[in-house]
């Protein structure tokens, strides 16, 4: 596989190292002269100097034959443009883009740049997982595949409280995959009896959150 990485910061350089270890071919594009010099001493000819939002730079990096484009610069507008150019100008099938400011996620979504990775959102999801403020936590989104992995705490008085998992009417398009109790996770089994404080992990198509919330958290709880 041939990967063109645009943005040679810590994320870009480590992705390059990991792909090289797996035996893939890599180019890494960087426009800051001092950073480029560092990359060049490690990656030699695989490091390429230039602004990765310029067409001639991407062309010289061989974007046209890339299997995947990885846009991980520190600027969200640049990552969006790199994603669009690689897909629409060079016909690259797979793009992964970094979202630096979570407020810009909506622009990536609007312009069809997916999948995306956002460190801030990942950290927030982990905090929510460790110290839940709401009864529903988004653990992971497969945006392009249209699937969310969510976690819901079982609330007292909800339909789930004291019920067998198999007796609950889980809506189509969603699936409970795990029950967490006292920090131990078990793969969901229909015979598991749920208790207050348990957390269930479900995989769901969009739009099922409120139905799942009603079952596990009761009717009164508002979505975060």
């Amino acid at each position, binding site marked *: 596989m041939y990967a063109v990485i645009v943005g040679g910061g810590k994320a870009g350089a480590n992705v390059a190292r990991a792909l090289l270890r797996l035996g893939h071919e890599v180019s890494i594009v960087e426009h800051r002269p001092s950073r480029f010099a560092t990359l060049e001493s490690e990656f030699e000819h695989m490091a390429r100097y230039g602004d990765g*939002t*310029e*067409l*001639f730079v991407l062309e010289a990096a061989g974007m046209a034959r890339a299997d995947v484009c990885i846009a991980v610069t520190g600027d969200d*507008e640049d990552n969006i443009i790199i994603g669009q150019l690689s897909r629409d*100008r060079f016909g690259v099938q797979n793009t992964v883009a970094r979202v630096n400011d979570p*407020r810009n996620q*909506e*622009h990536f979504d*609007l312009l069809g740049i997916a999948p995306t990775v956002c460190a801030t959102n990942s950290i927030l999801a982990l905090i929510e997982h460790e110290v839940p403020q709401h009864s529903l936590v988004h653990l992971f989104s497969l945006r392009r595949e249209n699937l969310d992995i969510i976690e819901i705490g079982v609330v007292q008085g909800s339909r789930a409280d004291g019920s067998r998992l198999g007796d609950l009417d889980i809506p189509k398009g969603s699936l409970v995959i795990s029950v967490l109790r006292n920090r131990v996770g078990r793969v969901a089994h229909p015979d598991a009896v749920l208790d207050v404080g348990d957390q269930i992990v479900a995989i769901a198509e969009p739009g099922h959150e409120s139905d799942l919330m009603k079952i596990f958290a009761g009717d009164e709880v508002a979505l975060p």
Partner: protein
Amino acid sequence: MFVVVVGCGRVGASVARSLVEDGHDVNVIDQNVEALGRLGDDFPGNLLVGPALETTVLERAGIERADAFVAATNGDNTNIVIAQVARDRYQVPCVIARVLDPSRARFYGEQGLTCICPTRTAIDMMQSALRAFATQRAEEA
């Protein structure tokens, strides 16, 4: 008509002022408060300070009811992204982006975005001035 202009440099400020002279309503966004000073104290439109990529800023400027949107910040990629946001998310009927890089301007032009490229204009004008001189020389000889 009502126009939102993003980026209050020489281009953005002049476009905003001439639109006002023509009797249009104009709101201007720039992330730098000093840049907005270019418009002068008597500028009648609303001035907003903030990053153009932020939808709250665009919405406070009234993008949802804008007839036209001008993206003239000093960043090509910022202009291309916010122009697409104005077109695809807010359905602004007329969207214009200033793009200095001729190859990006051409590519996004082919994708249906109205891009004004001052660099391309400068290249064309210099070429035609030089060609005219060469022709004149040839005729004199």
